[in-house]
């Protein structure tokens, strides 16, 4: 394995980790506020479809991004309505959103474009193009650093940089602002927040709204950044891997970044080497595919530290009378 191959695998890791990271951070806000969300997958899928559809019709990827975020936010609000206002079961609401998105996207795509549940391929301004960072070309001759900067760091779409910038932002919002403190408190002990005179409902809605926006960006990145169009079920379980990453990261922003990069790396290696040959022992590709889930199970079982979810997670808040 030479240096160039490593760069290519890491490059692929970044592309594959970005949607995971966005979805993982989305789940982080929601779950830290005490609203479990297994509907990340569905929200990403709906966003992927609508962003591609609107980008195709309007020719503008930015309008597509807005539409994708809109679709995801609508579903997030449905989840909020069911689980916050009506105090329903958050897991069931999430499952319903996944089913709804899986069916609705194909149905609408079919009646809209009549291409078997696809959107037409996006061209030109309807896609997020890779950005070449300044000096990337000038530095390309420099050994070692040139490829790292030119191939690995430069040359991704704007949403990738946004996703990575969101990690410190999320850390700052959650751990250094009043809003973040209250948000975390709502997930741990909503009664205390309520006693302090802060609206639990409003805070949880805010968290679910942020979750919707981030899932929308993740979906739009899949359909208009990585790909040029929507295809049926194109999220392919990434929402669930993001959830696994969230647990693996113990609901912390920086850990989320490392977890998503690790899961992305596993995927990238699996894609590059169908059967990984480690000096006589051949690891089949299936092992790489299930490794994220296995790692999460091992983690949950308590072998490596402890994953403690927010204490009030999954429970609707009922004000005592």
């Amino acid at each position, binding site marked *: 394995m030479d240096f160039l191959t490593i760069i*290519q695998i890491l490059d*692929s890791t970044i592309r594959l980790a970005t949607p995971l990271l966005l979805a993982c951070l989305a789940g982080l806000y929601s779950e830290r506020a005490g609203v479990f969300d297994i509907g990340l997958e569905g929200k990403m899928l709906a966003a992927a479809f609508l962003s591609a559809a609107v980008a195709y019709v309007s020719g503008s990827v930015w309008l597509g991004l807005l539409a994708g975020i809109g679709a995801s936010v609508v579903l997030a609000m449905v989840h909020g309505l069911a689980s916050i206002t009506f105090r329903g079961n958050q897991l069931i609401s999430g499952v319903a959103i996944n089913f709804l998105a899986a069916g609705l996207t194909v149905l609408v795509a079919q009646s809209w474009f009549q291409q078997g*549940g*696809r959107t037409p391929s996006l061209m030109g301004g309807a896609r997020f193009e890779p950005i070449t960072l300044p000096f990337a070309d000038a530095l390309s001759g420099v050994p070692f650093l040139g490829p790292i900067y030119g191939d690995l760091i430069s040359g991704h779409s704007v949403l990738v940089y946004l996703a990575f910038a969101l990690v410190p932002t999320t850390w700052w919002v959650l751990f250094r602002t009043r809003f973040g403190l209250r948000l975390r408190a709502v997930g741990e002990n909503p009664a205390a927040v309520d006693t302090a005179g802060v609206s639990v409902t409003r805070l949880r809605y805010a968290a679910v709204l942020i979750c919707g926006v981030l899932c929308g960006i993740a979906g739009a990145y899949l359909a208009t950044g990585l*790909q040029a169009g929507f295809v049926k079920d194109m999220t392919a379980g990434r929402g669930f891997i993001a959830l696994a990453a969230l647990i693996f990261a113990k609901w912390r922003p920086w850990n989320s970044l490392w977890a998503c990069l690790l899961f992305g790396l596993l995927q990238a290696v699996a894609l590059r080497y169908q059967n990984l040959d480690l000096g006589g022992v051949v690891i089949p590709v299936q092992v790489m595919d299930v490794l994220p889930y296995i790692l999460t199970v091992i983690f949950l079982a308590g072998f490596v530290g402890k994953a403690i979810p927010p204490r009030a997670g999954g429970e609707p808040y009922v004000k005592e009378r």
Partner: protein
Amino acid sequence: MTVMQKFFGAAAALALTAGAAAAEPALIYDLGGKFDKSFNEAAHTGAEKWASETGQKYREIELQSEAQREQALRRFAEAGANPIVMAGFAFGSALEEVAGDYPDTKFAIIDMVTDKPNVRSVVFNEHEGSYLVGMLAAMKSASGTVGFVGGMDIPLIRKFACGYVQGAKAANPDAKVIQNMTGTTPAAWGDPVKGAELTKAQIAQGADVVYHAAGGTGVGVLQAAADEGILGIGVDSNQNYMHPGKVLTSMLKRVDNAVYDAFTAGPDMETGIQVMGIANGGIGYAMDDNNSALVTPEMKAAVDAAAAKIASGELVVHDYMSDNTCPVE
């Protein structure tokens, strides 16, 4: 009461006309719909060709859900449609149930073998078409390395891969073929992101022509090929139009010919297994305005010569599914 009588009268009249219109052929599309630019649309094209040539009518239905498969089959059979053609292997189990109940009706199923006396099972020699596009890929490749991206890792897709490798090696004995399967679950048919990443990984290893047999995942393969400035190869239907000038050719499964044949044969359709290969126009490769500049006359001549040899039986392409092995890597 009179209303009811009228209603029954109308129903009876309707039943009579339905009976009189017997022996119309019928076509059932799979989920995905009539105009999917692929499999189902090819079936529709074949039916339309028959209709315009004979001036007769046919019945058709687009399925909306899995549950409708058996229902649609029974409804057409009850209405006297004959033969009933269904597009897609997914009808296998439903047909297994229904076929025995209507011994006088002929059924044709595409891409699946159903062993019933009144069923025609149409299967395609995908390995022969893959052989032809493999030749084109190896002749076009400047690096001598070509790629293959499969969908779900099943014997059928290995059959595509094996034919492709044989063709590439026939055109250039030193050709290197990088093979990747997207996954081992049905999700592998609809993950264009993974398809694109696989393609980029193959390009990094030197591939400059990539063939896909991966359904929706293939959309990502062709997209990545076009973005990175190499050539893709489409599958099943003519996908040259998806990225004009960036798709070398497409391996064609002439589903339209299969439907046309069945409709033309009518109620006297022969049953049993019908193999559609190069010899009977069931398999081919696509040439149109979008790729005419990419395929030189010499390349075309070489491929057409190979096709003629396969059709005459002089050249036998190994079928992976016959013994689950491939003689070449």
